[in-house]
């Protein structure tokens, strides 16, 4: 008879504690069921994500369209929007650039030529990060692309600069991405020079490459790329550079600087269809910005100078050629005068020969007949009789720019210029 009373007394006295134990045990059972069956309580998650992500999206949109509106249209005059579009274009072009340069590098050796022909570019879809995961220690973000955009669990998420993470949960309008900086995430990587394979694991910003033996040679600053062995990231995406390389007890102790910013990126690319690439021979920086070769030494000016800028330069060159042909030294006393009336073809310089021919029917400059003074020639020479020819058939032997004196020809002393009258 007293047992029920004792039980009631215990229940009433420890009621809160018992309820606490029941709630804890219930959650433990839920946890154990999820871990054991590797299944998820998807309904609750879908409800939560469907409730929160639109609100976060609206918050982000309101922030962009109110605060950003004032800045865009009244302060920065839409510069921010243009900057965003340019950044998107730049990211896309950088991705294409990396791909094509990888392909060009690959095509340089015949071994990879067939791969180059068979490969196609990875198909990606752009996404925006709209929020962080609620677990404080975990490196998880949400993106605004879900199953309606073709995103599937397990897809790789990258930026043009490096890898970001992988999709671990997909909802209709959003997806959850586990960043590479999460302690539970590992990536297969491969060194650039010796193609040594290892495993990248990070704890926040501290990233190390494991499972590389001490006998292998890795240089500080050497690039690491995805190896594709994790079946998540296609091979050939840049990961980062070796910040420090030390020999450990059994394996090398390699710290890596990630080339991308997994937590700080705003826009990412989800790889819908990955394509493996070969590891490029040159690091990404050199491939993106290749320095020009050294400029050639200054060439000595001479008749072979191909470029002449003005008409005066061409005439000067013509007279120099005539002088050389007739062994005339300009400026010398007592020498014979060269015949400057020779046909233009005979004295045509190689540079002039390279010039495109002028159309015969429509000359560039119509001939102008001037009775006096004689257009060219030596001062004092007989002026040839002007023959009446049709204007179209008259071929000018020179370009009429007024009287031009040959270089080195004796010149008349110009009358002293009268000083301007005040």
């Amino acid at each position: 008879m007293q047992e029920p009373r004792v039980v009631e007394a215990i229940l009433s006295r420890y009621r809160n504690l018992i309820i606490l134990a029941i709630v804890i045990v219930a959650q433990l059972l839920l946890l154990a069921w999820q871990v054991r069956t590797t299944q998820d309580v998807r309904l609750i998650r879908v409800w939560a994500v469907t409730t929160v992500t639109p609100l976060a999206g609206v918050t982000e949109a309101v922030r962009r369209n109110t605060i950003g509106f004032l800045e865009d249209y009244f302060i920065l005059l839409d510069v921010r929007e243009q900057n965003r579009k340019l950044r998107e274009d730049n990211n896309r072009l950088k991705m294409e650039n990396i791909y094509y340069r990888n392909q060009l590098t690959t095509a340089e050796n015949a071994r990879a030529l067939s791969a180059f022909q068979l490969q196609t570019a990875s198909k990606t879809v752009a996404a925006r990060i709209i929020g962080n995961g609620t677990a404080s220690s975990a490196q998880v973000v949400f993106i605004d692309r879900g199953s309606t955009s073709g995103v599937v669990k397990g897809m790789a998420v990258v930026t043009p600069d490096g890898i970001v993470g992988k999709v671990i949960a997909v909802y209709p309008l959003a997806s959850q991405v586990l960043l590479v900086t999460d302690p539970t995430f590992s990536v297969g990587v491969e060194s650039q020079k010796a193609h040594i394979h290892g495993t990248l694991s990070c704890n926040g910003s501290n990233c190390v490459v494991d499972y590389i033996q001490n006998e292998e040679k890795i240089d500080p600053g050497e690039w690491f790329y995805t190896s594709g062995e994790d079946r998540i990231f296609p091979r050939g995406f840049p990961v980062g550079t070796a910040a420090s390389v030390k020999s450990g007890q059994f394996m090398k102790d390699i710290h890596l600087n990630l080339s991308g910013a997994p937590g700080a990126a705003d826009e990412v690319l989800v790889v819908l269809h990955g394509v493996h690439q070969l590891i490029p021979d040159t690091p990404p920086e050199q491939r993106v910005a290749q320095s020009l070769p050294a400029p050639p030494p200054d060439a000595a000016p001479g008749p072979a100078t191909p470029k002449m800028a003005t008409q005066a330069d061409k005439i000067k060159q013509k007279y120099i050629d005539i002088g050389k042909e007739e062994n005339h030294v300009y400026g010398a006393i007592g020498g014979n005068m060269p015949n400057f009336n020779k046909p233009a073809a005979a004295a045509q310089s190689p540079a002039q020969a390279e010039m495109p021919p002028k159309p015969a029917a429509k000359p560039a400059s119509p001939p102008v007949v001037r009775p006096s003074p004689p257009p060219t020639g030596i001062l004092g020479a007989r002026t040839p009789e002007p023959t009446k020819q049709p204007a179209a058939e008259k071929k000018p032997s020179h370009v009429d720019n007024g009287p031009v004196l040959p270089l080195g020809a004796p010149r008349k002393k110009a009358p002293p210029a009268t000083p301007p009258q005040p």
Partner: protein
Amino acid sequence: MTEYSEQLLKKPLREGWLNRFQVLALLAITLVAIICQFYLPRLIPNTEFLEIPLLLTIYFGLMRQNQLSALFFGAFVGLAQDSLSHLPLGMYGIAKTLVGYFAASVSMRFDVDNVLVRFTLTFFFFFFHQFFYWMMRRALLGQVVPLDPQKILLQALLNAVVAVPLFMILDRMKLSGS
């Protein structure tokens, strides 16, 4: 026992507190806390350390002074937080259930209106929450996640600093609702 310690242990009267703090308002504030946890690090960088759902659980436990409602509220907030994380449901639920229960238990002995008490309890409960979460992750899920006590202590300090004005705002909301 000094006069100050007696003042700290004084039990204030909190009748009808839940009536003013309506259930709908609780749900709305919980949703706002979850969204803040979700969105704030994107809006303001380097605010990942803020555990606003935990601060809300501590506040509710301290002010409600009812172990049952506090533990259920903690379980609700924790499960909501779990549903937006990548780990199985129940990790934050168990941790916050315990925090809510203990906060309500402690509030029966201390004057939780005192700023120093609030600061100290928040600091302690944050450390307990993070340590318990790490332990469960390691023991139940088998995940080897490194523990950085210095970082957790610093985060606990920052959360306690944030908690003091946040609790005052929540106090004002409670008063405005009366």
